[in-house]
């Protein structure tokens, strides 16, 4: 809209400026024409009255002191009347002023005389300027008014559009907010809103179906997995089990285990996405961290890692306890698992953020897909199912926290959960 307005303003500007010039020259032309007619009229009158003067010496009396009228003898044939604009010194104003001068040859007592009649253009120029200024002022006022009216009208007209835009900006597929557009006066916008409502409703439906599918699928897999797992466990009880069979069984058990974990993670992810952890309560992160940390000590000791804890705040958050436990557990075990022998894990907690830093591979996580699901990790660290960070991010998203990943050369990986 501003584009249209800008173009319109530019056009109006050009018209005003050009119009001012055209107008000026037009008025001036008319004015000069009128002046010239007046001069010719005077010439006619003067020529008529000339013969009433009996003595040539008296002609001088006719001449005005300011030089508006001059009569002097001329040689040769009488000239045709000629009008020019010339600059003359004005004794009153004491400066050069424009004059319109008519020069014509006349006959006086059979002798050729030169008659010069002048009119000052000064007063009339001022008058002209006045008209010009008034004219331009009028144009400016008119233009400003037009712009104002147009802006006002545009804002009123486009208001439903901006409302729709604001709604779309805040629209989230995964939120249960109703899709509601207020009907307005403009038919086109109503139609747009109607189309948008249909589109969004359908998208949300598809999204929900998909989400439910993930949850249901994972759910349905739990029981067959339980069957497989228990059967394998029973098989392991066989007293006649050979070592060869035990090796196969072990492999099968660990795969079943892995499947079960994967499935559980998928289910968890789906459940977080479905907002099934809606309950909000005061959570003290300090407690959560120390609790999870206690569970991790064995793994950490075994990996030979140095732990640095700087818990300088309670880390009070109003959110879901279970989700916070999962988040901290995921991030902490991530830091332990992807570490290097003799490495370290640093945990910082302040009022503003919860930060976990760990030494690791000298390569940052791929930018943009740090939190991608099933991201293939070149380091080949086993044990995880590739959903830990995805779950962490989903939790932060759900709880309104921000999870940031940074890589600090040479090999420091930092995850920051912004609390405030």
């Amino acid at each position, binding site marked *: 809209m501003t584009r249209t307005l800008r173009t319109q303003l530019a056009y109006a500007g050009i018209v005003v400026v050009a119009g001012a010039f055209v107008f000026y020259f037009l008025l001036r032309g008319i004015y000069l024409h009128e002046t010239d007619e007046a001069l010719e009229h005077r010439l006619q009158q003067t020529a008529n009255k000339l013969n009433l003067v009996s003595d040539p010496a008296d002609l001088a009396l006719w001449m005005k002191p300011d030089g508006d009228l001059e009569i002097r003898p001329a040689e040769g044939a009488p000239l045709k009347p000629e009008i020019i604009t010339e600059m003359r010194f004005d004794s009153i104003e004491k400066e050069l002023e424009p004059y319109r001068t008519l020069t014509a040859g006349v006959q006086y007592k059979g002798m050729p005389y030169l008659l010069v009649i002048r009119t000052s253009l000064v007063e009339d120029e001022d008058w002209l300027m006045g008209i010009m200024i008034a004219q331009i002022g009028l144009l400016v006022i008119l233009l400003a008014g037009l712009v104002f009216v147009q802006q006002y009208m545009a804002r009123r007209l486009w208001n439903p559009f901006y409302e729709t835009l604001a709604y779309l900006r805040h629209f989230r597929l995964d939120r249960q907010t109703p899709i509601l557009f207020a009907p307005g006066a403009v038919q086109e916008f109503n139609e747009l809103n109607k189309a948008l409502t249909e589109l969004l409703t359908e998208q949300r439906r598809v999204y929900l179906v998909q989400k439910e599918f993930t949850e249901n699928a994972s*759910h349905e897999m*739990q*029981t067959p*997995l*339980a*069957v*497989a*797992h*228990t*059967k394998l*466990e*029973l098989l*392991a*009880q066989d007293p006649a*089990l050979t*070592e060869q069979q*035990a*090796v196969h*069984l*072990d492999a099968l*058990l*660990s795969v*079943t*285990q892995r499947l*079960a*974990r994967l499935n*559980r993670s998928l*289910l*968890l992810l789906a*459940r977080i996405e479905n907002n*099934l*952890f809606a309950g909000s309560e005061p959570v003290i992160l300090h407690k959560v961290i120390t609790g*999870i940390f206690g*569970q*991790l000590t*064995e*793994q950490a000791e*075994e990996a030979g890692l140095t732990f640095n804890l700087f818990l300088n705040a309670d880390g009070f958050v109003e959110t879901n306890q*279970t989700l916070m436990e999962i988040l901290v*557990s*995921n991030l902490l*075990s*991530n830091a*332990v*698992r992807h570490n290097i022998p003799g490495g370290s894990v640093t945990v910082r907690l302040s009022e503003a953020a919860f930060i976990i830093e760990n030494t690791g591979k000298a390569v940052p996580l791929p930018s943009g897909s740090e939190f991608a699901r099933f991201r293939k990790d070149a380091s080949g660290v*086993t*044990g*995880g199912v590739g959903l*830990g960070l995805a779950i962490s991010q989903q939790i932060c998203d759900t709880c309104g926290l921000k999870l940031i990943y940074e890589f600090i050369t040479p090999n420091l990986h930092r995850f920051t959960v912004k609390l405030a």
Partner: protein
Amino acid sequence: MKILIVEDEAELAASLVSYLEGEQYRCEVAAGFAVAEDKILGYDYDCILLDLTLPGGDGLNLLRLLQQQQKADGVIIISARNALDDRITGLKLGADDYLTKPFHLSELSARIAALVRRRRFNGTNTVKAGIITADLQARIVYVSNRPLTLTRSEVDLMLLLLANQNRVVMKSTIAEHLSGDIAEHFDSYEPVYTHIKNLKRKLADAGAGDCIKTVYGLGYRFELSAT
């Protein structure tokens, strides 16, 4: 001791029966809501293993039924549903424990043993295996009436093995039993090996002999020496 298994998945029910009968429990299976309802109303069980999603009704309603009838049967919920609300609702309705599918048989067995013992022998909460005695309440393990100095994890491990005597307990079961959900993030069994090694040494030092056998790479079996 009588156990009612309320589970609609026949194969899973069969596995449970097979494992638990080996532990000297008598098992009955109810594959649907109506059958379970009849059995619960008609008999008393030491323990009911309850699946929540049943053909013909919600397992939680069976818990309500038990409450209405003021029955004292112990209940362990075994469900594919892992929602916290289900867990809380179940426990509020009088269930004693909650296991999410898929679970480990030896873990289930340990939970049943703990539940049955808690309900049956109030106060005298001990398990005996030869010269080894475990006080479940005080969490102390005695060998020939002399207490062993064990860490928390070693006590947990000892109790798990005692609840599954003469059975192979998978190392993954031990790992999860010892470190809970956090074990999910690690594929390493080093802590399990360490705890087993220490426990074996402490038992042997106390004169209990070599009663924890390694079953190939699979896991461990607690059995009293033939001697």
